[in-house]
C-alpha cells in the first residue's frame, strides 16, 4: 500500500513538473500593452507606441507596410513636416499600425519593430527600416539577417532581439494589426485616419503631400 502511494506520488509530482516545464518553455505571448487603447473606430492596442504627446487632441493613425515604397515616400517627404509642425509642438500624436500584406518579408519586418520595442527602441527601429528600404519587394533587404543587422546598428541587446525575432513572439500581434486595417476598410498602404478630439474621423488614402494633412489637421485643432 505504501509502495503504491509512493509510486502515485512520484507520478503526480512528475506530471506537475512536466506541465510546469512545458508552460515555462512554451512561447507565451505576454507583453505590456493597454488592450483598451482605441482611436476612433480603430483598436490601436497592438500598434506602435504613441509618437508625440499622448494627450494631444488629434491622432494620426497610419497603416503601413515596411516594403511599401509609397510609405517610404511619405516617410521622407511628408512625415518630417508633420513632425515639425504638429507632433513636436504637442498638437498631434501618431500611431503606426502594421498592414503587412505586400511580401513574405513584410510581416517579419513588422514583428522586428516590436522586438525593438521590448528594448524601448520602437521608433528608432521603425525609422531605420524606412530609411534603409530598397525599391524591390522581397529582394532580401528585409530578411531575418538584415533585420538583425538593423538591430545591431542600434546597439540593441542581440541575444534577446534574436530570440524574440526567431521565436515569432509578435507574429499574432502583426496579424491582429493587419486584420484591424481590413476591418477599417483600408485597401492599400499607406492609409491614414485622422481622429479629432470629438472622435471625428477623416480617412486619407495614399502618400499624400503635407498640404493635404495640413488642411485637415488645421480644421481639427
Amino acid at each position, binding site marked *: 500500500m505504501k509502495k503504491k502511494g509512493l509510486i502515485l506520488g512520484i507520478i503526480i509530482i512528475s506530471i506537475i513538473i512536466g506541465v510546469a516545464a512545458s508552460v515555462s518553455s512554451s512561447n507565451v505571448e505576454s507583453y505590456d500593452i493597454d488592450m483598451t487603447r482605441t482611436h476612433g473606430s480603430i483598436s490601436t492596442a497592438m500598434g506602435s507606441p504613441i509618437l508625440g504627446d499622448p494627450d494631444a487632441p488629434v491622432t494620426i493613425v497610419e497603416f503601413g*507596410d515596411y516594403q511599401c515604397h*509609397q510609405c517610404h*515616400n511619405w516617410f521622407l517627404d511628408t512625415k518630417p513636416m508633420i513632425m515639425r509642425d504638429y507632433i513636436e509642438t504637442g498638437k498631434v500624436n501618431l500611431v503606426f499600425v502594421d498592414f503587412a*500584406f505586400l511580401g*513574405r518579408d513584410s510581416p517579419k519586418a513588422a514583428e522586428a519593430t516590436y522586438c525593438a520595442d521590448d528594448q524601448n527602441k520602437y521608433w528608432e527601429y521603425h525609422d531605420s527600416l524606412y530609411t534603409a528600404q530598397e525599391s*524591390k*519587394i522581397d529582394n532580401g533587404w528585409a530578411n531575418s539577417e538584415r533585420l538583425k543587422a538593423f538591430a545591431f546598428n542600434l546597439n540593441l541587446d542581440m541575444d534577446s532581439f534574436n530570440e524574440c525575432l526567431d521565436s515569432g513572439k509578435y507574429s499574432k500581434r502583426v496579424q491582429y494589426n493587419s486584420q484591424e486595417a481590413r476591418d477599417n476598410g483600408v485597401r*492599400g498602404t499607406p492609409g491614414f485616419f485622422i481622429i479629432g478630439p470629438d472622435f471625428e474621423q477623416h480617412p486619407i*488614402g*495614399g502618400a499624400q503631400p503635407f498640404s493635404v494633412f495640413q488642411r485637415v489637421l488645421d480644421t481639427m485643432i
Partner: protein
Amino acid sequence: MLKILKLVFSNFIFLILSLIIFSSMMTVLLFISEFIFFEPFFVTHIPSGSELGFSLIVILSILSALVIPMNLFRITHLKNSKQKIGGSIFGSIVGSVAGACSCGPIGFAVISTFGSIGATATAFLTNYEIPIRILAIVILVITYFTTIKSLKTECQVNF
C-alpha cells in the same frame, strides 16, 4: 512624317479620339501611381525621386494617343490589316499594368484575390516598373515608325 500626321489628325474624329486616349491614360496612370489624388481634395504631387516614373507616364500617354488613332485610321480608311493596332494596344497595356499594382488598392485587390500568385505578380510588376514602362515605350515607338512607313506606302497607292 508631318504630312502623315496631318492627314490622320486633320480628321476631327481621330483628333478627339487622340485627346480622349491621352487624357484618360494620363489621369488613370497618374492616379494609380499616386501622382494625383481626388480625395479628400484634388491635389497633384511628384515625390522627390519619382520624376523618371512621371516622365515615362507622360511619354507613354503621348505615344498611345498618337499610335492607336493612326492604326485605327489605317483600318477604317485604308481597309488594311489589324496587325499593327495589336502592337499599339499591347504596348499601351503593358505600360499601364507596370506600377499599377504596388501597395495601392489595385495591388491589395490582386493579392487578396489571388493569394501568393498575386503577391508574386505584384512584386514583379512593382520591382520592374521602370524597365517594363521603357519596354512598352520601345514597342510603341517601333509601332509608330512602322505605322508611319506603311501609311506612306499605302497612301501613295490608294490616293
